[in-house]
């Protein structure tokens, strides 16, 4: 856009359409990401993470309280006959109960190379040197730091004369959002289990970012059992089912008012938080639970 060029309503509507499109992409699909929980050592067959390559830094974050001796990370491109590469191999001593790794995929770690758009797999193996202590894989994603430039757009008044500088301050950040056009969307991992766990060591936990107004949680309970749901370890729901039937339960929370509604500390806007299910026995008859969904949406 240059000074002196005419600005049409059509052009403005293109900006509006693109802003709405990306706004709905960023805000409209906020699904809980399973925090993978295990006890003791972890084998290759037990875990697999799938990525479509886009950014060069592979970011990994693991909660653990005892050393891994060693922690090993493997990667393999999808396809028959592809080689599995050991891309990280070291003892891991947790710092603040966490080990964080940033692996530069562009440096061909362990000989592994991947191109944009390639589907590849990552898995973890570790030997926990203290028996059956719990560990949680909290984050697995690619990232590129300082990728987005936060725009600085002036607020107009009715008397402001807009020029090319102003218009480009709007057009440039919208055009930059085209990076979202090539994207992936992970599904909600709906674990079905008959294992009873305590609040502290449940397998059933998901990470969300606080963005939308409405938190939706769904679960299927089969036969008799008690489901307790926690938000950042604060109890928000107790469901006691005393019949030998299969029933789906749906819970809806207004995240804007959940602090006063339930008397809890709500997560701050834009921060990550955790939803946990604790499932326990309430009688006889092969009880199972299946998590159906945990996600935030703009609508109830």
């Amino acid at each position: 856009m240059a000074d002196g060029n005419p600005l049409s309503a059509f052009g403005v509507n293109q900006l509006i359409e693109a802003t709405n499109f990306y706004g709905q992409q960023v805000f409209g699909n906020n699904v809980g990401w399973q925090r993978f929980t295990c006890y003791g050592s972890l084998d290759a067959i037990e875990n697999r993470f799938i990525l479509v390559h886009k950014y060069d830094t592979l970011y990994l974050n693991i909660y653990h309280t005892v050393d891994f001796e060693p922690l090993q990370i493997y990667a393999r491109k999808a396809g028959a006959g592809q080689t599995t590469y050991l891309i990280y191999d070291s003892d891991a001593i947790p710092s603040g109960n966490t080990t964080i790794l940033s692996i530069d995929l562009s440096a061909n770690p362990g000989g592994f190379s991947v191109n944009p758009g390639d589907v590849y797999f990552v898995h973890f193996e570790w030997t926990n040197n203290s028996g059956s202590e719990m560990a949680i894989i909290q984050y697995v994603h690619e990232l590129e730091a300082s990728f987005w430039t936060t725009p600085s757009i002036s607020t107009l008044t009715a008397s402001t004369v807009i020029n090319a500088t102003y218009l480009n301050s709007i057009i440039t950040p919208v055009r930059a959002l085209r990076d979202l056009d090539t994207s992936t969307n992970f599904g909600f991992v709906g674990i079905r289990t008959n294992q009873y766990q305590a609040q502290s060591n449940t397998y059933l936990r998901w990470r969300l970012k606080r963005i939308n107004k409405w938190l939706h949680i769904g679960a299927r309970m089969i036969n008799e059992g008690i489901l307790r749901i926690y938000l950042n370890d604060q109890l928000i729901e107790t469901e006691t089912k005393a019949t030998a039937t299969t029933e789906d339960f749906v819970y809806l929370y207004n995240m804007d008012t959940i602090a006063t509604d339930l008397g809890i500390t709500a997560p701050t806007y834009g921060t990550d938080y955790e939803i946990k299910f604790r499932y326990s026995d309430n009688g006889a008859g092969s009880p199972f639970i299946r998590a159906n969904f945990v996600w935030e949406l703009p609508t109830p």
Partner: protein
Amino acid sequence: MSFTPIDPVEHTDSVTAATFNNIKTGIDKIYGILGTAAVNNAAIGNYEFGPNVPDNDQSIITFIHSCRYLLYEGDGVISDPSGVGADVAISDPETTSEVGEYDLESIDWLEYGMQYRVEGVEWCIEYEKGGYIL
């Protein structure tokens, strides 16, 4: 702080300062969530094929549909949780490629924004190849 879609300028309407300020508000909200680091999340394998403990048969993966293609591995079924849409079988891809690709636009009952389930596969992830032109 949710995102509110911006109304387009209608035929014969004027483009006003308020129009631009609404665009600014929308852009600021988007970047407020994105932050500065770009992130590409991993999908996690179907828990049914995960740890031997806990007993995890019949675990499922549920999507809010937003990308056109489903990449997957293994035999499975795409189903409508409401029970209205007919199940769609997806089969294990060629052994040479390992990854199956299913065009979700071929499912007549599935619209963007809807939820659907994938059962039986080892893993799956939605993928968008691009093409939105600005």
